[in-house]
């Protein structure tokens, strides 16, 4: 039955789109953790700030302007956060970091409310992405395809940078053993800083990309935080492979769970997470062996 096949294609695309969005968020978080051993619970809030900054810029110069401004603005915020807060918290235990960034969630949540109010904002999709495209026998929104393509492009780009370039080799060395990397003459501190800012920029990008799909609300950061954490814990902290695997697992379990067993859908993903933690406490693809 074609309609049956179409249904599966549609859900698979939906799952893929959710996965790509989560990938954009989790890759920044996971590499920051892997490299700096820093737990940034406020990563979701950066995503929300990205959505707001994107919406503000899009209101002036259209969607593409927003798409450009959001990552830059959030990276700028990353610079502030890094020099003001994170640099000093680097040597603290995970608990202090969790708490400081938990406090940061509160602060950023209320700051977005103060600047942009409580009412949801929206971003208009650009004209040629607002329609639907016929694909594999179904009609699928063009914008969602754009999200999938963007996610895949970023994944490919990061895989190339991390796997093939010198900077990538330095980052992998830092994740593996930062003291040894520093001994080899790598400026680990500057590397941390760069990676942190890139991670922030990707969170901002995810925010503005998600904005036309979901509405922009102050608590969108809190809502995305838990799925992102699940992704990186399932995938294993610190690795690109883990982030993409975790995102795909989450996206497909969540989407197909919601369609096939709505009662169990959300419990399913947590049960999966618990199972992963019991069987492989370090996740599926940890950066360190």
């Amino acid at each position, binding site marked *: 039955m074609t309609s049956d096949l179409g249904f599966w294609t549609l859900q698979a695309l939906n799952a893929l789109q959710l996965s790509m969005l989560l990938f954009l968020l989790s890759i920044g978080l996971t590499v920051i*953790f892997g490299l700096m051993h820093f*737990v940034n619970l406020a990563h979701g809030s950066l995503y929300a700030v990205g959505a707001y900054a994107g919406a503000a810029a899009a209101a002036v110069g259209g969607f593409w302007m927003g798409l450009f401004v959001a990552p830059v603005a959030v990276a700028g915020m990353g610079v502030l956060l890094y020099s003001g*807060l994170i640099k*000093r*918290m680097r040597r*603290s*235990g*995970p*608990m*202090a970091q*969790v*708490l*400081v960034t*938990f*406090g*940061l*969630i*509160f*602060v950023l*949540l*209320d*700051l977005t*409310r*103060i600047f942009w109010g409580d009412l949801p904002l929206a971003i208009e999709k650009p004209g040629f992405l607002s329609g639907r495209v016929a694909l594999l026998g179904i009609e699928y929104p063009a914008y969602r395809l754009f999200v999938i393509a963007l996610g895949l492009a970023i994944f490919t780009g990061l895989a190339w940078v991390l796997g093939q370039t010198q900077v990538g080799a330095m980052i992998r060395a830092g994740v593996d053993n930062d003291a040894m990397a520093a001994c080899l003459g790598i400026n680990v501190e500057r590397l941390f800083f760069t990676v942190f800012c890139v991670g922030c920029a990707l969170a901002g990008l995810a925010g503005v990309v998600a904005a036309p799909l979901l509405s922009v609300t102050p608590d969108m950061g*809190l809502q995305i935080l*838990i799925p992102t*954490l*699940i992704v990186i*814990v399932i995938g294993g*902290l610190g690795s690109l492979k883990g982030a993409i695997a975790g995102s795909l697992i989450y996206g497909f379990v969540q989407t197909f769970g919601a369609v096939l067993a*709505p*009662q169990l*859908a*959300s*419990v399913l993903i*947590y*049960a999966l*997470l*618990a199972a992963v*933690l*019991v069987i492989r*406490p*370090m996740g599926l693809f940890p950066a360190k062996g």
Partner: protein
Amino acid sequence: MFRHTPLRYIALALLAAGALFQAATAGYFGLEILIEILILAMLVLALDMVAGFGGMVSLCHGALMGVGAYAFATFGGILGLTPLVSLVGAIALTGATAWVIGAVCARSHGIYFIMATLAFGQMAYSYVFQTPFFGGDDGMGGIERLDLTALGIDLTDSRSFALFCLGVLGLVYLATVAVLRSGLGRSLTGVMHSEQRMRALGLTVWRVKADVFGLSGMIAGLAGALSAMHIMYISPGLLDWTVSGEALVVVILGGLGTLVGPMIGAVALVVLKHELSAITPYWHLVVGLLLIGVVMSRANGIFGWIEAQIGARLDKRLNDITRPQPTEEPRDA
């Protein structure tokens, strides 16, 4: 191990006196706030027991409290048991749940432990949220309070209920201290300092962690049942992870591993929340900045700071035969 210092006795006496005074004199609104503080204090005692003395930073204690509340409401409202039986059942069920979570998570450490407990908490939240049997997102209403008319106490009255909660909190505090002073509590602190050493001494590490986590869960379940009795209505929001986060914030603001500190933190947070939300809708901003400030100052919360400032001096004067009293409480998990 937990030790009472003179400063802690003084703080406890002040807290008790303040609560009694409030219970005796406050009007309806003041009593509601007092009850809220007392129930939160129970929850943070439970959390401090595992986090401050066992290094198990749990992000599922809010959910455990919710499990207690839902168990109480289900036993009473759907199975038709008396409130007393429901209360005992709720405590037992929450304790058992916590024991299982503790046993499963015992192998994880640091951020993985936090994530694992978060996962279990969210699992409970989603399950309750999506199950029509528990009322889904509508929650459950019509919950009865304990019937103590045989003792001449009418708990439907706010003042009696506040005093009742205060009494329960006192018992919970004594129980927590007793657990921490027992062999189990000492083993737990040993495990926090070095699992390897305790294992070499022949201890089954995961059992110690699971047992204390279960006991802590019983307290959380009790707090949940009381909160269900207090509001007489429950909703899945009780189990959300932000409740657990808030409990952790209270423990840190007050002073991790001091038992007294978290109770002070509970007072501070609830009062701050009510005072600030009267002035500004953005009270989260203030609490967030406060939290960042406290953690970055590297003091062990409000009470830990006071202890560091005057505690040492006071102790020296009061017990003259003295062993010097450094702040031996572990600060970081």
